[in-house]
């Protein structure tokens, strides 16, 4: 299978689906829902194929408009897409969770109006995230970042007859636009200084001539992208946006958007563009400080919440802290075994957390759908009336805490181990974060196992379209948990190596390697 022929369909298929949605929805509700499922299903197939090809044959370079990124010049002039193993992993993660969220929406969004816009937006959101994952051009990255962000602003405020939807949407949009403009400002500075926007070639130019402008641009990138990932001083939008959005969207926001638009973009810029021209140790420590703050604040705030989705949102902030910690140690201990393990742990945890947090938000959606409330104090004893949902929640909560037979264990272990070797204080902070996280999830378990309350007596397990995505995620979590070290050695460590290997990234585009 040739990776170059299949890669553009990753963009074409969701774009085609989104553009044709207004026409297809003229044929009625069933056609629109079937269309959304078909399009996101095909995208999943294409995404898996891309992942498989990259895994087998190494990175793909795709040039838009011609066969080669070079015209008559000796530097890249066209937009390129560059997919290494890390990008391919992100593509697989996005297409999988987005497909499950679309299937889940069939049952979950049944009572809402304006669903033609909803399915268009959800496909655009997926498109933006795929674009960020595959692009190798800095301005192209910004465009896809904005596609993703604007689609998520609209989806957060989708239920515009509720006050919290509008409030969260406005808050998210105002601060999100400022964060995006930071990124744009950084790109403008870099372009003014170096005259190129191709990531690989920019890395060459940067290492030849590191300037103050490049450092200022890096500060803007870190500030903007830490916002997008929900790191601690700027995590406040996340705690409002996740509860207010429909649960299928919360699953995508928490599982995908904060990782692709934040963490993935940050690693790509730090390692692939700035790798050779900055002091890795300094930047690494900056990230570690934010990571430690995020870990403690996110998980500690999760413990005191009474709203189920808000609790999950703060838990997402906490888990982003682990991922950032892995990246920070990967930078600060660059080139050593510790740094590589930490980075592999961060990549692994990104993937795992996407699965488990998507599952937990889908479950929260089911609970809200059945009982009409998400206040933990009003809920208890769902285990009797909703056994399948309860089982799924048990798996998801155990996985996110990091219980050994499930997938969260291996990824968190890699991060604990490397942080303890790197610096015992940082390791201790990571453990404290997990203690808070456990406390938070044990509280939610009381919702499910307890004396049945009046509301819980009338609850039922959800219908098939809502149940199956949950079952698939539970199966994925269990199966990934059975082979943790095989997955780590075969996929996650090579992905981390691909990320660390800046020369390889540059060589792929410049045609040397």
């Amino acid at each position, binding site marked *: 299978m040739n990776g170059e022929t299949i890669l*553009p369909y990753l*963009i*074409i298929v969701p*774009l*085609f689906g*989104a*553009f*044709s*949605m*207004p*026409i297809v929805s*003229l044929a009625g509700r069933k056609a629109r829902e079937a269309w959304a499922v078909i399009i996101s299903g095909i995208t999943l197939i294409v995404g898996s194929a891309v992942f498989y090809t990259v895994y087998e044959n190494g990175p793909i370079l*795709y*040039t*838009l*408009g*011609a*066969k080669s990124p070079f015209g008559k010049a000796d530097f890249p002039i066209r937009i390129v897409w560059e997919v290494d193993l890390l990008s391919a992993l992100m593509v697989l993660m996005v297409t999988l969770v987005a497909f499950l969220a679309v299937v889940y929406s069939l049952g979950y969004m049944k009572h809402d109006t304006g669903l*033609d816009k909803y399915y268009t937006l959800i496909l655009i959101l997926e498109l933006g995230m795929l674009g960020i994952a595959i692009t190798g051009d800095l301005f192209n990255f910004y465009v896809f970042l904005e596609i993703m962000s604007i689609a998520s602003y609209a989806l957060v405020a989708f239920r515009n007859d509720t006050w919290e939807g509008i409030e969260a949407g406005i808050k998210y949009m105002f601060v999100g636009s400022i964060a995006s403009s930071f990124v744009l400002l950084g790109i403008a500075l870099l372009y003014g200084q170096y005259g190129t926007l191709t990531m690989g070639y920019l890395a060459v130019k940067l290492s030849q001539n590191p300037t103050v402008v490049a450092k200022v641009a890096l500060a803007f990138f870190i500030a903007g992208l830490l916002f997008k990932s929900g790191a601690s001083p700027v995590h406040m939008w996340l705690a409002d946006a996740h509860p207010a959005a429909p649960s299928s969207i919360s699953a995508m926001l928490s599982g995908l958007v904060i990782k692709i638009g934040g963490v993935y973009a940050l690693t790509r810029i730090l390692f692939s563009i700035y790798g050779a021209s900055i002091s890795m140790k300094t930047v690494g420590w900056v990230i570690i400080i934010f990571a430690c703050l995020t870990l403690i604040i996110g998980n500690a705030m999760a413990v005191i919440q009474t709203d189920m989705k808000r609790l999950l949102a703060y838990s997402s902030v906490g888990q982003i802290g682990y991922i950032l910690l892995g990246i920070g140690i990967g930078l600060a201990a660059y080139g050593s075994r510790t740094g590589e393990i930490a980075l592999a742990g961060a990549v692994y945890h990104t993937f795992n957390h996407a699965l488990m947090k998507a599952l937990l938000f889908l479950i929260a959606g089911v609970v809200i759908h059945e009982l009409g409330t998400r206040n933990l104090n009003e809920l208890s004893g769902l285990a009797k009336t909703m056994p399948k949902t309860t089982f799924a929640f048990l798996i998801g909560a155990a996985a996110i805490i990091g219980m050994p037979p499930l997938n969260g264990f291996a990824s968190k272990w890699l991060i604990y181990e490397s942080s303890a070797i790197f610096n015992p204080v940082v390791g201790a902070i990571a453990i404290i974060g997990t203690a808070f996280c456990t406390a938070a999830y044990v509280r939610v378990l009381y919702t499910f196992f307890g004396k049945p309350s009046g509301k819980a007596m009338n609850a039922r397990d959800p219908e098939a379209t809502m149940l199956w995505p949950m079952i698939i995620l539970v199966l994925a979590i269990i199966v990934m948990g059975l082979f943790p070290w095989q997955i780590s050695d075969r996929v996650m460590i090579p992905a981390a190596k691909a990320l660390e290997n800046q020369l390889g990234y540059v060589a792929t585009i410049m045609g040397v390697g």
Partner: protein
Amino acid sequence: MGLIVRTIARTTIPLIGIFGAYIVSHGHLTPGGGFQGGATIAGAGILFLIAFGLGEMKKHYSKSLYSALEGIGGLAFLGVAMLGIGTAFFYNTLWHSGPVLNGKPGTLLSAGFLPIMNLAVGLKVFTGLVSALAAIALWRRWKE
């Protein structure tokens, strides 16, 4: 609006529309293009809405038509981008070997798929902006 405004609007709306169409169709030759031209034509639509009022607008505006046209604009853009998919996405095959639109540079029928893309973007921008403005104008009243 008053009589003078309506009469002026009746004469200027076609002029604005024609000028916008000119900008769209000459996007590859003169400054402007799909977005600028589309926004200009949408300006004519907004002038119609303001001069003749919401009642008249409701008679001439159909949500499903505009929404479908916007989709068609996007699909046309994607379609011409895929014409050269054998070489690469966005490969300008109409310019390199296509049957039409590969005339002498500087003439109207040159520049490969660019004029088609300008038309598609113009259509999308026009329908999108008019739909957005119509939706805002049709929004619930100030108090409930």
